[in-house]
């Protein structure tokens, strides 16, 4: 008998999850996450120590051995009751010192170059990998980043998300920028479905809760090291690749 309890959902999923007669099917599962196709989105039920994303539901007593019927019942019973709604949309009106943030990111990332191909391409001039050529002017090379690299969210996609984050912080996200990016990331087979969702969410200004924490710390001029550490622990190199994108967007 499972005892999964929904504790947090992102605000942006509320409308989808409140629909009656949701179509739910199994997608994939990991140690701390189980993904379901729900209303043409892939939504993850996840353990409470993972960051809430625009497409996840945070649970207590997580188990990856639950089935579609269980999830259907759980959503009907739990939503709108005890679970907390979390806003993962970036605050677009923050002012901050670009140089300080860039320097802090530099100090934090330079020692971690070995953990990420993208950071290696940035910080080690002698290491040549498939990111080395395109890292120099990322903005004109977005199409070459999409889907590049291994894993659930390819490193190139994580990098782009970080780059978009930087553009939001710098208030440089124009409708044209969004449109161009959207076309690039939605090319057929450019990347996998899960990663594409995160890319589209980032284009619309939605990021995971650790990033929102980082943005809030930057906004309030508070130390960012804890947020950076938390982000850097996401995935094998995902968090670091994302921070690499943020770092280069501030150049």
């Amino acid at each position, binding site marked *: 008998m499972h005892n999964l309890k929904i504790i947090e959902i992102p605000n942006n999923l509320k409308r989808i999850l409140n629909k009656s007669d949701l179509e739910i099917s199994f997608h994939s599962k990991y140690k701390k996450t189980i993904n379901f196709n729900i209303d043409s989105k892939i939504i993850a039920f996840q353990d409470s120590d993972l960051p809430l994303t625009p497409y996840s539901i945070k649970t207590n007593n997580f188990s990856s051995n639950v089935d579609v019927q269980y999830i259907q019942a759980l959503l009907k019973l739990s939503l709108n009751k005890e679970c907390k709604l979390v806003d993962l949309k970036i605050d677009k009106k923050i002012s901050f010192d670009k140089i300080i943030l860039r320097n802090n990111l530099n100090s934090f990332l330079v020692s971690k170059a070995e953990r990420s191909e993208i950071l290696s391409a940035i*910080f080690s*001039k002698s290491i040549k990998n*498939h990111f080395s050529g395109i890292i120099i002017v990322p903005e004109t090379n977005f199409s*070459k980043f999409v*889907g590049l690299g*291994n*894993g659930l969210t*390819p490193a190139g996609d994580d990098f782009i998300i970080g780059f978009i984050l930087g553009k939001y912080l710098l208030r440089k996200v124009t409708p044209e920028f969004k449109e161009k990016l959207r076309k690039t990331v939605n090319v057929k087979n450019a990347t996998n*479905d899960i990663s594409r969702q995160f890319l589209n969410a980032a284009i619309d200004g939605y990021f995971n809760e650790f990033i929102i924490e980082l943005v809030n710390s930057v906004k309030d001029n508070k130390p960012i090291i804890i947020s950076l550490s938390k982000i850097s622990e996401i995935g094998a190199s995902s968090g670091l690749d994302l921070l690499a994108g943020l770092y280069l967007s501030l150049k």
Partner: protein
Amino acid sequence: MIHNVIKPNTYFDSVTLMLFSSKLNSVNGIEQAAVMMGTNHNKELMINSGVLTKAQADKAGSNDLIIGIKAASQNIIDQAIKVLNEQFENKTKTSSNGAEIKVKTVEAAAKAVTDLNFAVVSLPGRFAKAEAMKCLQNNMHVLLFSDNVSLEDEIELKDYAVKNELLMMGPDCGTAIVNGVALGFANVVRRGNIGLVAASGTGLQEVTVIIDKLGGGISQALGTGGRDLKIGVGGKMMLSALDALNADPATEVIGIISKPPAPEVMLKILEKVNKFKKPVVACFLGGNKTSLGKTKVYSADNLEQTANALVALSNNREIPKNSLLKTNTESLLNSLKLKQVKGKYVRGVYTGGTLAYESMLILSSKLSGVYSNIATDKKYNLDNPQISKENTVVDMGEDFFTDGQPHPMIDPKQRTLRIISDAKDNDTAVILFDCVLGYGSHDNPAESIVKAIKEVKNNRGDSIVFVGSVTGTDRDPQNRINQEKILTESGAIILPTNAQAAEFVVTLVSKLGAK
């Protein structure tokens, strides 16, 4: 032949996929193998690497996992598939084999591994103290790589460490070798009976490397951080480290390397080492030998002398008067076309702080007016560290240059540019440089120097001389012999130690003056 397997809608994280790829590549006879998600770019990479056919690539979508194997025979491919299937099975059985414990906090690490006793802390300065303290409180010795830690925080950390008999190396401790394990920037050196304690990173590297060249070996090389011997900290860690070396059965001879300590601190150090039975060699760079008073401590003038003395004492031999690594400078001078050399000044462009400091001392003792961004005499402080004047030694690892930039030992680009800009000054006759190898350093620092030499020589031909030394061993990842070869092939004069390089430059500049 190429063999491809496509697993529809199969997701693994990148570490798992890299593990799969590496297991496949380790199968005997496999020419190349890769396991990747089938995104357009990944498919292109796999096709270009020769592990995926176009036909198979067209069948796979971005949510599918592609396995690509290139081998000479079907037998080898079958063997590889068997290995891969085992990996898939293992992965689905258990997601973690426990070989690597992932933790997010110091407390969790201490809980997960019961006999944890050493931590390296490298965080931006203002956050470093809290984490270092947590490590000490969990009974770990600490190497604190970070700089920009306040003096008050350093004292608090070191007081706690002393009280609890722990080592608190740093802040700003860049180098250490503990029980044979190199930490921070350190070289691959022989193990032996010489224990070192230093308030200097590249000073410690240079001494360990020369000891290695002379056939000696290192028991422990401990760092204290640059401020330890100042009056505020009072040598707390130097004194603890000396006690540790004295108690260490593997250490038979002890070496101390630092800039001159505050007089009160010097007294405490001498009082302590005078009680030791083990011989002690001290190199207080730029200090006054007489300040050692009547002690049994052997005082060395430079880093090379320190290593010479330590190796001799470690073999129960008399300390030699001349360096055992001495080169024939006369023949080196003869190899140069001195008549063609233009200018009269030397420009030392360094990545290593203590190496820069040592050169500045050697040059200042013989040449007039040596300017620097680390000058001890304020009169010779560079107004703008970016601009050299007359004779100059610049430490490119100083905060001015590293703020927001990687240290030049990691990324020597800024140093390369500085060599080029200094050589543009027609009054510059000699460029003096270091080339620091070892863990943590750039993987080909010689190449970045040669890049500058080539560019300079295009304009100035033989009217400028390049002189340097390589701080490294043959077993370092960059390999000293290869690095020296790269440099000498470009026309640079390479001496066996930094002190000798600086002394050679003094001779060279005097000859140029007399020309």
